[in-house]
């Protein structure tokens, strides 16, 4: 990974991780610059989800360090978490709270000024304001994913970590998400997008990396078309 001194949004050095006796990550480095969108792909069990959780600060690596905006993600220092957002298959929403209550609570967790207004604005941006008083369990999967996206982006994180974000979305919603991510990138945020379907993320990405057995086997700028990229690494990844 090329290193940018000081101006990196996200920097990980020497990430090792093991679960019990299984080694999952072998000394990974990662850097994310402002405006950069890194697409990470690889076979199952390569360690992609583990990597994402470590970058999000949800897991402490067996060895290595993660820095967000220069601040280490160490235990006891939580301010670095302000700049991180995570979007996975789980909505992180409470089934007994309305969408508005859910987002207002999330806004409070991130100590945003006027949490209620921030929540309202996020719901409006996501086209969910009419459903603000509904419970998550009453929403269709697509709408739920939209609500989850609203929650993840609520505090305008500088670093956005995504795990298969386009899976549950129909075409319009996917386009909406892409444009929202693009505008974030234009404003200097960065994202790491983990996917099995590189084609979905191809246009968005500025770098592509492939993780196999806990190691980077590919790491290069995204240039050209995916049709030109894939044959160079036969059998390695699916599109």
């Amino acid at each position, binding site marked *: 990974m090329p290193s940018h001194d000081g101006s990196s949004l996200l920097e990980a050095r020497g990430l090792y991780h*093991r*679960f*019990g*006796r*299984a080694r999952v990550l072998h000394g990974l480095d990662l850097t994310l610059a402002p405006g950069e969108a890194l697409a990470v792909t690889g076979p199952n069990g390569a360690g992609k989800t583990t990597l994402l959780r470590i970058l999000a600060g949800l897991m402490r690596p067996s060895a290595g360090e993660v820095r967000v905006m220069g601040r280490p993600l160490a235990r006891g220092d939580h301010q670095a978490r302000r700049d991180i957002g995570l979007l996975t298959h789980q909505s992180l929403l409470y089934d007994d709270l309305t969408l508005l209550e859910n987002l207002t609570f999330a806004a409070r967790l991130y100590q945003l000024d006027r949490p209620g207004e921030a929540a309202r604005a996020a719901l409006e941006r996501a086209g969910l304001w009419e459903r603000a008083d509904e419970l998550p369990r009453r929403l269709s999967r697509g709408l739920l994913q939209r609500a989850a996206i609203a929650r993840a982006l609520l505090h305008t994180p500088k670093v956005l970590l995504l795990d298969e974000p386009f899976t549950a979305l129909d075409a319009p919603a996917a386009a909406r998400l892409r444009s929202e991510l693009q505008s974030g990138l234009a404003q200097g945020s960065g994202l790491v997008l983990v996917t099995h379907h590189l084609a979905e993320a191809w246009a968005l990405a500025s770098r592509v990396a492939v993780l196999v057995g806990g190691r980077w086997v590919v790491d290069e700028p995204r240039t050209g078309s995916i049709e030109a990229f894939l044959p160079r690494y036969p059998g390695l990844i699916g599109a």
Partner: protein
Amino acid sequence: MTGSSVSLEGARRIVRRGLGLSAVGVAGLAGVYLLALNFTPVEARQGLAQKIFYVHVPAAWSALLAFSLVGIASMLYLWLQDPRLDRFAAASAEVGVAFSGVMLTTGPIWARPIWGTWWTWDARLTLTLFLFFLFVGYLALRAAVHDPVERARFSAVVGILGMLLVPFIHLSVYLFRTLHPQPIVLKPSAPSLPPEMLRTLLISTAVFTLIYLGFVTARYGLALAEEIREEGRDAG
């Protein structure tokens, strides 16, 4: 990684050392038995029955030692994150549950023909009972958590909390007994013990501590050997 670069042979060596230590301890126990029966004066009021004191007190002490070490190892583990400390704590807990379990079963079995009652809520028995339950809870939690690091973290928290509970149990029982005096069936180790009795008690305590150390070392070695073998199986 087991957190150490010990080989299977090294682990086996630890087990052998532990078993050797235990053997010495058990031999010592036979010596204590002889000492207590033949070379220690009989207590005036309680007679021959009092002699169990030389086994029960050290056994209870060993259980308490085992638990305190679980607590200390737990604190050190949360600070240093060394898996050896977790392995030691688990070994100590297993030995502790055995010691307290034996003491809790032999106590009533011996007490019944002598005093006519199976159980008394005296301080020593009550404390040992609580230690037993704390050990059981600790080991049950360990059995229920599969990820080794999570298991070590959770056990450490329970170990520390448990260690801090013991003084409160002691305090509660003390407060309870001063307000509800019960017939004292087992005279606690008063400072006014004649020197021969004190000597036997101390020797017995030393022997039990030796047995504890031997058992824990052996158990530790076995746990280490098990981990190394499984790692070899996964890697190979």
